[in-house]
């Protein structure tokens, strides 16, 4: 069970870091996608959804190929950091980000598309820079979508398993995340410990996600309830 604690800590770290990176990547991507008008747009949207289509272990297998020192990604990483990408925490983060990207992009995209452009025009005329517009107007106005995206990305990274199993190599303290230990417990027929861990994970996630979704409440109630 002490191994579980390491796994919990590692999982949290992975989920938090991946979710943050996801939001940082997904927000501008979704924004650009919402503004971009081109016949090829549906194809780009479909490409973004593709990581979902492959079974996670298979995706992980291909990531493993990409991470190997023979590939440009793996060798580039190695010459940059001296370390190996596969079986490292950094590799897990990359895998999780790729795997969960669709969940982060799609809700944000839908939010941006529905944002009334007049608010942005007003913000622009008020002199807000692009960044200020994003920070002061766009993000607060699409908050429910951000929370949806964040919640999905976070939960998905917590439960993320196939990819991690493949590229992580199940190394305690480095790549053995909770989902893998849980899987291990089930696989090694330690059902008691599996139940414990599963219930713990569920309760913990329940609390964390409840807190996340609570953010949505304040102010939101009044938002659409007025006729002006």
């Amino acid at each position, binding site marked *: 069970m002490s191994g579980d604690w390491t796994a919990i800590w590692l999982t949290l770290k992975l989920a938090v870091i991946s979710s943050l990176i996801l939001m940082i990547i997904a927000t501008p991507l979704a924004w650009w996608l919402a503004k971009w008008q081109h016949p090829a747009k549906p194809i780009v949207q479909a490409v973004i959804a593709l990581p979902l289509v492959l079974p996670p*272990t298979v995706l992980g*297998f291909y990531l*493993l*190929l990409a*991470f*190997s*020192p023979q590939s440009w990604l*793996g060798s580039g990483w190695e010459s940059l950091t001296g370390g*190996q990408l*596969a*079986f490292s925490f950094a590799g897990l983060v990359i895998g999780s980000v790729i795997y969960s990207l669709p969940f982060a992009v799609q809700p944000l995209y839908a939010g941006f598309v529905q944002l009334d452009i007049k608010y942005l025009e007003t913000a622009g005329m008020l002199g807000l820079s692009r960044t200020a517009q994003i920070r002061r107007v766009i993000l607060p106005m699409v908050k429910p979508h951000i929370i949806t995206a964040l919640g999905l990305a976070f939960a998905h990274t917590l439960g993320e398993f196939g990819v991690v*199993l*493949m590229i992580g*190599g*199940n*190394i*305690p303290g480095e790549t*053995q995340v909770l989902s893998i230990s849980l899987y*291990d417990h*089930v*696989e*090694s*027929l330690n059902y008691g410990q599996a139940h414990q861990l599963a219930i713990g994970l569920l309760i913990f996630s329940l609390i964390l996600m409840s807190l996340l979704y609570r953010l949505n409440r304040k102010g939101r109630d009044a938002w659409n309830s007025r006729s002006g």
Partner: protein
Amino acid sequence: DTLKVAVAANFAKPLEQFATAYNEKTGNRVIVSKASSGTLYAQINHGADIDVFLSADSSRPQQLLEDGRVNASDVVTYAIGRLGYIQRSNASPDVETLKTFALAPTTRLAIANPRLAPYGEAARQALTSLVLWQHVSGALVYGNNVLQVYQFYQSGNVDHALLAWSLIKGEPGAVQLSDELHQPIVQQLAITATGADKAAANAFVDYLLSDEVQTQLPQWGYQRTGTRE
């Protein structure tokens, strides 16, 4: 000083025991990571830092040999698996119980996927030898590995299963099948360590092949193998 050993899930429990004993005896630490043989193979093939790979079959270690990753002397058999049959209706079953059921299957029979797991292949061979394959093939469900087969049985979703004897040894309704019904389930390992770690890996493998360990194998449901040549 620490050795990284990757093991196919079905042998994980005994290996952990042996590793602990080895640690007590020599002071050398052994880190065990477990996954399916296929996953482990793919990882080793793509640079995973593993010193010893204990596969559930012989084909993956042989594949590593073909790939040129290891030398012929690095691949050895560490245990012979045995096939078992478990079911719910009969407290002390035998092969006849299996035959009776398989000739007119009323519920499903779980085996491991013959393409992925040696126990699955062994189960297929056993059923073929008993001329039951034709009869049961419509009633089969495939587990991805023997552990999953065991879960199918344990959770009550199947009432009959053919799987590793090591998993069901001592359980009510379980019986070991004769090793004449199938090809030997040869579990091989490969020493993948290079350079400085190689000696330590060899030492651990020697320990696994020592009589001290090998005599314990039947207790775990495996058959011992000869010594390393």
